[in-house]
């Protein structure tokens, strides 16, 4: 197990290196630079700026410098937010996005799995149709509309929750709901189809032939097998949700990490682009690793390579 994890971590480093390299060159390939703006900057000042940030060096020099600083977990100063390093941006934004994402993820998984199971157990009955109408709505309504609807009804009309801003736990409810809507719908549909497939399996018939009740069959035999595809999906999904959503953060005025993904690109804020990309990649790779490890626990047929035989 330990050997397996260390092997995987090594591969992760390799993937990270490739991601950093690709992002670095793609970013440089895009026209313009961090100091290009409508206002003409005098050439001397631009030269000084470039010199200060090391942008006048040859590309291989810059690339090498960047690799070294990333290895030291130093993403450098932000070009756009004066006096702040990218590390500061991440340290400020990530906890907020993480909290919000976790809340949404918990909501989505619990409600989604429950809906999916109910739908599958009542296949082609009203519960099934109801859950799936809900799921289609959740998938097809964009999050900014969902967010506005929630704000309008739950905050303005009913006054149950604050409209926006990030201050107390109450403030987190609406954005979490808006963020969770699509996820819930996806998970519900996935759980339903996977559950339906499992329920058609021979071993469910065996369980029935043993005299187990519907509830016992569902809990002991069906759910565990049905959750495998859901767990697979959960890895990349959680990385995406935990790093924040640009749209939701803009609508609710949340100081999260999500907005940096978008704004840093239009700003050609080189260090921020690199920083958040690397950070996101690390999260994603870790999430995938976690899913693989979780798989080994859920499905005994999957033996993590590197583990001893017969363990």
């Amino acid at each position: 197990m330990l050997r397996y994890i260390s092997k995987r971590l090594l591969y992760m480093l390799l993937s990270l290196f490739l991601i950093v390299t690709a992002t670095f060159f793609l970013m440089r390939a895009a026209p313009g630079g961090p100091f290009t703006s409508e206002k003409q900057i005098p050439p001397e000042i631009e030269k000084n700026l470039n010199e200060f940030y090391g942008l006048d060096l040859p590309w291989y020099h810059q690339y090498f410098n960047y690799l070294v600083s990333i290895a030291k977990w130093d993403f450098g100063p932000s070009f756009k937010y004066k006096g702040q390093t990218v590390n500061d941006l991440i340290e400020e934004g990530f906890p907020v996005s993480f909290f919000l994402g976790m809340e949404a993820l918990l909501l989505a998984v619990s409600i989604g799995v429950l809906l999916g199971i109910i739908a599958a157990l009542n296949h082609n009955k009203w519960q099934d149709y109801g859950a799936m109408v809900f799921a289609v709505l959740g998938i097809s309504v964009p999050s900014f509309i969902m967010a506005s609807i929630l704000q309008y009804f739950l905050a303005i009309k009913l006054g149950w929750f604050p409209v926006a801003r990030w201050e107390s736990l109450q403030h987190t409810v609406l954005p979490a709901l808006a963020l969770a809507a699509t996820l819930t719908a996806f998970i519900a549909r996935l759980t339903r189809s996977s559950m339906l497939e499992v329920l058609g399996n021979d071993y469910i018939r065996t369980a029935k032939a043993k005299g187990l009740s519907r509830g016992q069959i569902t809990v002991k035999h069906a759910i565990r097998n049905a959750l495998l595809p859901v767990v697979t999906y959960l890895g990349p999904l959680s990385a995406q949700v935990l790093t924040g959503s640009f749209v939701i953060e803009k609508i609710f005025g949340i100081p999260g990490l999500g907005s940096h993904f978008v704004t840093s690109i239009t700003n050609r804020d080189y260090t921020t682009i690199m920083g958040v990309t690397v950070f996101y990649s690390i999260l994603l790779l870790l999430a995938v690793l976690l899913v693989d490890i979780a798989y080994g626990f859920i499905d005994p047929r999957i033996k993590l390579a590197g583990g001893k035989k017969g363990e």
Partner: protein
Amino acid sequence: MEKLLEVKDLEVSFQTYGGEVQAVRGVSFHLNKGETLAIVGESGSGKSVTSQTIMRLIPTPPGKIKNGQIIFNGEDLVKKTDKEMEQIRGKDIGMIFQDPMTSLNPTMKVGQQIMEVLMKHLKMSKSAAKERAIELLRLVGIPMPEKRVNQYPHEFSGGMRQRAMIAVALASNPKLLIADEPTTALDVTIQAQILELMKDLQKKTGTSIIFITHDLGVVANVADRVAVMYAGKIVEMGTVDEIFYDPRHPYTWGLLASMPSLDSDDKAELAAIPGSPPDLTNPPKGDAFAPRNPYAMKIDFELEPPMFKISDTHYAATWLLHPDAPKVEPPEAVKKRLRKLSSNYPQPVIVKESE
């Protein structure tokens, strides 16, 4: 002999988009205590549906028991609710399925899957159930059961899994064991082992067995009595000797003629039954086998043949047994095996509907 199970005039249908499929069309048979009854027939003859109906395992809808009774231990299973059936399934009736590769839950330890039955029906504690599960695994011939009990199905071979399935089915000492093609998915040497095991266990536990198969070789090996099914009906039923040495129905002849035997001349081709089984959404008028039957007479296409009784235990539904029917010769392969059985009546007797 005491009857454990009596199925009377059972009719089962399935609603499909193409219409109502009449999978079982009036099946009656009984099973004595300690006896093995083999139900033989080709795919789609209704043998599996019959057995799953006894367990009430057919999904309803689309399935529906349209008529008939299943008297088990003096109680009609057709009238039982699902909750009441849970107390019978796995406890009084155990079932083994065709494909051992898919019939066990892949994410649950084999021992756990046996223990479930013990804890549910015999109210055993977890530790007692585990002890018993190990014993059961040993009983079905799995080596090192203490270790095997903690393993998952994928760590078992196909034959081992079927043994484990048998352990599951026998866990609470059922009065009746239904084996739905238990050896079909196994290779021949393992088949023989599993059959041997089942016979052995039957001797030890005294359970009655319904053995569903399409393999007549297996039938000769395990069964006391045989019911031959075709298109949702039993066309011939009798003791093993009666079916193998004195078959009367042309369909049984066809099945026997298509079976290779050691003394058959190696140049002789195996005879196949031409055509395919009828569509049971629209069962044909008259005898369902008539279109494939080289011995079919005019009446076979008009009127369904009644059951004729050839001896106390031997029944066949064919017009050929009618006193007015012409004498016909069964195929060569069948003729070679024919023997005179002393238990036969001087003349076949038509069975009255009420019987």
